[in-house]
């Protein structure tokens, strides 16, 4: 098995992971907003969600567009791809888990703020891995 995979292929797989993960959390948050889970402070919940998910999602989409426009046939280290995919999945599960955990507290916004304590380091690690994934490519 090759130790390198196509950049385009890797990026699309990561994009699927992120789009699916973000979509699931988004639907849940949307449902919670409509159910008045956060009362009139729903903007705080959305602000939390947007700062949690959107920056990396923007990076992914930007990279995809760049890849589509350049059309190069670069490859990337498979281990970097696996690391990025694993960290991304873990991070998205954490985000979804935080939303689920609001069912067990009377102070959901407080819970979401507290969750930043462990989400932020994971977010930083995931961003680093994705960054390394994108810069580790080389022309085949």
């Amino acid at each position, binding site marked *: 098995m090759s130790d390198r995979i196509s950049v385009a292929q890797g990026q699309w797989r990561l994009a699927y992971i992120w789009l699916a993960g973000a979509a699931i959390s988004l639907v*849940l948050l949307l*449902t*919670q907003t*409509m*159910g*008045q*889970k*956060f*009362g*009139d*402070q729903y903007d705080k919940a959305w602000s939390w969600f947007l700062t949690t998910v959107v920056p990396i999602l923007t990076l992914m989409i930007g990279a995809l567009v760049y890849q589509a426009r350049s059309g190069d046939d670069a490859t990337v280290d498979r281990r970097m791809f696996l690391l990025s995919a694993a960290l991304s999945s873990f991070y998205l599960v954490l985000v979804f888990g935080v939303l*689920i955990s*609001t*069912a*067990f*507290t*009377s*102070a*959901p*916004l*407080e819970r979401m703020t507290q969750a930043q304590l462990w989400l932020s380091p994971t977010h930083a690690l995931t961003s680093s891995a994705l960054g390394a994934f994108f810069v580790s490519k080389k022309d085949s």
Partner: protein
Amino acid sequence: MQQAPTMDCSASQSTIPPSGVTVLTSSASDTNNRVLTLSWTASAGTIEGTGRDVSWVAPQKEGAYLIYASASNEGGTSTCAVTVNVVRLVAATAAPPDNRVAMTQLPPLPDWTLDYLVPEQLVIKSSEETLGAIYDRLRTALSRAQISNDETAVYGVGSDGFAIVTHVEHIDDHGVPADPRWSIQPAQRIPTTLAELWSDLIHATPGRYRVIILVVTSRSLNSLKAPRTQATAQGMSTLLRQGEDTLPSELRQVQGTADRRCVAVVYEFQRTNDSEPKALESSDIGGPTHLAAAGLWPKGDLP
């Protein structure tokens, strides 16, 4: 040579609650005794009106606020300032008008959800009764409702009345005390079924609260109010902390008057998220239901 106007500013009340109103007055004159146009500016809050007398509506935030008035003529511009302190409900110890009894007086109350005239036979049996007898009768009702002295505070209302303020009480949608009764933080259940989990996931943990103030007075209810102020659960907790434990013996001896009555003032609050519960402007629970559900008097005795 023309000189700048001379000015003076004052406020009808230098300390008011959040959203309270004070009237500001300024006089400006110059050497020619002309009528000068005044302009008002405030560091916060809202100025209503124009001219010599205006109203200033305080902001929600506590603090000392400066309000400026200025007037100009050919000689220059003059400015004067007045400071108004905005503070939440804080009981002030004040001597009653006739100095008979010194006791912590009930501060002006924010707008409330409802008030209910408690039937005379339950509290005031005769117009000659002393305040002590009425107080004891109310204490008996409070004990029946399992509201101890720790959950109440007593204030004087003028020199011939008093008020008993109860702790912020957690209630259900029917006014019945809910668990935990005296906590403002709602108890979070552990969902045991998928339906409960889904409900808790999507909906906020509800929290409904009330404060009952039993006022024995011959004064009008409007005289107890601080106009245009909204109650907060925090303010009510402060009210509870700053009152007296019991009715002073001097006040217990005060004889009744014919127009004395007992009014139950009820504040209701509702929490829809994890912020502080907000005051309700109306309630679907009536006064008699509140008092009966709290356990103060049987429902049948409250028409």
